[in-house]
């Protein structure tokens, strides 16, 4: 019995020492995960996640301080890829697929105050001081920063309409729905 105790104790001490050495010399510097997550985020620094930009948000997600569902512009596709990267499982039906919107300036109400184009993170608004402003729809990400500051409330967030090129078949009626109706 003594021999058994001795053997196990030796094994434990040896393995513990090895692990300690490994944790010191084989440690990973910094957090490459954060870099990779940042690559995956949209990068428009819109702030809808309540972090001051995509870098701090990536850091929070990498540390586990933020859920992977915090980025509305990323949508379900982003949640799925983050879930795969971090190896967590996530209930996709909880993720709200935010309807993509694009800002639109109602020119009759615009006073040319330039507050909106200074805030736009992708320079999607054109216009100068005392001149009517307009939005490049292709560059707009729907982050709503301009919408928040416009003093005359002339900016409207319009949902992007499907075109013949973007329309596709929806998922078929879930069998559960149909079955439930029959029950």
């Amino acid at each position, binding site marked *: 019995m003594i021999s058994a105790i001795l053997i196990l104790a030796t094994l434990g001490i040896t393995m513990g020492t090895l692990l300690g050495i490994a944790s010191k010399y084989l440690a990973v510097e910094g957090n490459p995960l954060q870099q990779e997550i940042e690559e995956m985020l949209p*990068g428009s620094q819109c702030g809808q996640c309540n972090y001051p930009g995509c870098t701090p948000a990536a850091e929070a997600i990498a540390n586990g301080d933020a859920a992977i569902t915090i980025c509305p512009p990323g949508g379900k596709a982003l949640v799925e890829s983050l879930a795969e990267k971090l190896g967590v499982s996530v209930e996709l039906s909880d993720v709200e697929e935010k309807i993509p919107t694009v800002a639109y300036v109602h020119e009759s109400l615009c006073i040319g105050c330039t507050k909106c184009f200074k805030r736009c993170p992708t320079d999607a608004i054109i216009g100068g001081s005392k001149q009517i402003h307009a939005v490049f729809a292709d560059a707009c990400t729907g982050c709503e920063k301009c919408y928040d500051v416009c003093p005359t409330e002339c900016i409207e967030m319009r949902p992007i309409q499907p075109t*013949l090129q973007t*329309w596709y078949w929806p998922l078929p009626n879930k*069998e559960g729905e*149909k079955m439930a109706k029959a029950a």
Partner: protein
Amino acid sequence: MKILDQMKLFKIRGGVHPEDCKNFAAEQGIVDLPMPPLLHIPLQQHIGAPAQPLVKRGDLVKKGQILARSQGLVSAPVHAPTSGRIMGIGGYPAHHASGLLIRTITLKPDEKDQWGKLPAVASDPFQLLPQQIAQRVADAGIVGMGGATFPSAVKLNLRKRYHIDTLVINGAECEPYLTCDDRLMREKPGDVLDGIQLMGHALGVKSTIIAIENNKPQAQNAMFNAAKDFPDVKVVGLPTRYPMGSEKHLVQTLTGKETPARGLTADLGIVVHNVATALAVHEALRFGNPLISRVMTVSGQAIKKPANIRVLIGTPLSHLVDFCGGFVSELERLISGGPMMGQPLPSTRVPVIKGSNGLLALTVDEAKSGEQMPCIRCASCVQACPCGLLPLEMAANIKAGSLDASVNIGLLDCISCGSCAYVCPSHIPLVQYFNYAKGELASRQQVQHKQGETKRLAEARTARMEAIKKAKREAMLKRKEEMKRKKEQEAKKQKEQAEKQQEDKVEASV
């Protein structure tokens, strides 16, 4: 006893054998439709970029006049089906399941049906160079009329990049109910053959094969007799099986070779064209007529008088339905094309387009939708799939949200033929899952692309801001320097002045 050209045929995997229901319209000869009150001609009836309008509201146009020109390499022009006045160019419901609007030219016929000036025709088109033939085909706006609507001239020009030695004419018409190609071959075999040979000349092929399914013996006979004098044209009978009309599987049946994934049949040296396309080529090269009409089958048990009709492009479907006696029984589904791969239509307002080969009005019994049950893994779909895929697994993955997993087992190789959903005992809408997934993946790619662009723009802006700040800082430093120098100068000046004053004072006191 019919004698066809004998050729060794190969088997395709899977496939199904639906009831062909062609008896409703097969014996109806092609009739012309009376002129409708309004024509709606969409600017995009083909794969590729939409055509660019050349007319505007109020213009008077003649029959065959070009209304919109092609844009870019993969595109096709659109011509006026009859003479009349342009009422407007704007959004109109598209010939599409979604019911969304598409830019459409509305033409009011003036009842005179006058031809405009057509391009000069060569007395012997076979003397033309292949690229000239292709150019005339492009100018006539001819697209693949089997439903795919790929611009035919682009396909004819494939000889530039690939070594093409065989032209295959797809006379399979494997979809149930449809009989338009069958009637065309029976009634105009000479014209169809002429078009085929012109295409063969344009491609520079050594041999031509006209492949017709065995459920169309009269068409086989007619084409065989027409082609008797041409040794390099063979008429071959195909086993009646769906999807024999799929060009990849047609080529496999005829040659035993599979088209490489993500590739074209041109990789095998073969180009496939539809029978109606051949007729359009004949019309364009012999008479200079652009593509302004086509033959369509109107069928189904909910329509009073099924028929094969030559319609002008742009005719509203309601006009067609009225001509065929209207709907008789309870209409369950209105379908453009055949029942296997056809699109449901939102209403009969939509116009006929270059690719509409059929209009089906199906009753409840014909549409045969059953109650959806869970998958029992019977693998009937695996047996039926002509592409060797696993429909049950792909659908299960898509249902669970793992689209990437479904791509890994071959979603992008699916041709959406519908054989799997046809045989499924649980009535699972497999094809809809696949179409959804393909659309969702395309949409995510677009989102990725947009995100890339957004990042680029955001970074550009940040860089711009930095540059402005930097410029400001440098300007500030410069000004500081300036100020310092000025101050020093001022100080020096003052010192000099003070010294001078001293000197003056001293002089004054002396």
